């Protein structure tokens, strides 16, 4: 099986019952789907189960896939439905963090240093990793409606239009949710930077 085939062409082969084409698509997206479901349900074993269920549903729904439609959007729509069903079923706890809109002038120099790729000082790298862990924790505590837009945008590099299709929300809602999510993460980052 050629691994350079587009997702959509692979889906046509999968519709013919081609298991090798399915494997190529699985290998292409397993990390993204696992990561997405892991962030949504915050439990590794459960995320593995949901990833497997997602791909199995892709296989079994292969005839519902609309010819020529963007595969990635379709895939994440399935993953999202499965993850949100699980969140509702298990009531995965999410704790909304207090939004902090305080200005960030004190953190300016530190933020500049951390975002500047020329700073390759091991100490700075360690700080950056620590901040990533802090943001990761904060992300896990966002309500899932906010968390999912951050994941789809910043992890999967999706456009607002793609996110709107996956979540079934208007573009304006996608944008306002992203702003709200980032405002909360920003507040956590600022607090952490100021406490250092």
């Amino acid at each position, binding site marked *: 099986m050629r691994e350079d085939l587009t997702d959509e062409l692979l889906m046509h082969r999968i519709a013919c019952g081609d298991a090798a084409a399915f494997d190529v698509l699985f290998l292409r997206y397993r990390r993204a789907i696992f990561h997405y479901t892991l962030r949504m349900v915050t439990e590794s074993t459960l995320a593995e189960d949901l990833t*497997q269920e997602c791909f199995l549903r892709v296989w079994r729904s292969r005839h519902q896939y609309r010819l020529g439609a963007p595969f990635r959007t379709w895939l994440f729509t399935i993953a999202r439905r499965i993850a949100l069903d699980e969140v509702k079923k298990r009531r995965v706890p999410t704790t909304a963090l207090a939004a902090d809109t305080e200005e960030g002038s004190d953190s300016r120099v530190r933020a*500049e240093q951390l975002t500047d790729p020329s700073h390759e000082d091991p100490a700075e790298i360690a700080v950056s990793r620590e901040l990533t862990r802090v943001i990761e924790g904060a992300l896990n505590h966002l309500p899932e409606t906010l968390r999912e837009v951050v994941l789809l945008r910043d992890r999967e590099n999706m456009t607002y239009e793609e996110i709107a299709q996956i979540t079934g929300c208007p573009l304006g809602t996608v944008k306002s949710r992203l702003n709200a999510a980032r405002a909360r993460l920003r507040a956590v980052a600022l607090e952490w930077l100021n406490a250092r």
Partner: protein
Amino acid sequence: MSTDLIPPPEECASIRAELGAWIDGELPREDRYRLERHLDACPACRAELELLQLVTQSVREMPHSEPGEAMRQQLLAQVRAEANRTRSELFIAEDDRVRVIREHGGPTFDGEDHSVLEQMTAVSVEGRFVSWQGWDHAGTSCYFIYTD
């Protein structure tokens, strides 16, 4: 930069609401130019942008993990078992959706339903053959036949 060029604070609020869209490359050109002109003149909004970039960068750098190989093998075994049961399939498209109406055990389409099909034509995607397509006598239902 002289202080008299610093924009009024009320402008900063509207600019900051657009910083995320600017980072995402989702701002229309005219808004982008307005925002970039503001950033050139406003150190406070530049600091805000840097903080926001730090946040998005942190999300991107969160460690990647992946499911184990055992799951792949289990999934593939299940898919192969199901694939062997239906090697060639007939679909019907209605309301812009495609669904299976009949599954065949053989490698080629050889069912009695061929009587409903008019002349079959090849369907290609990006220059590659993917299926045969045909319409029923009434011209209302479209059939796709995939064969290995």
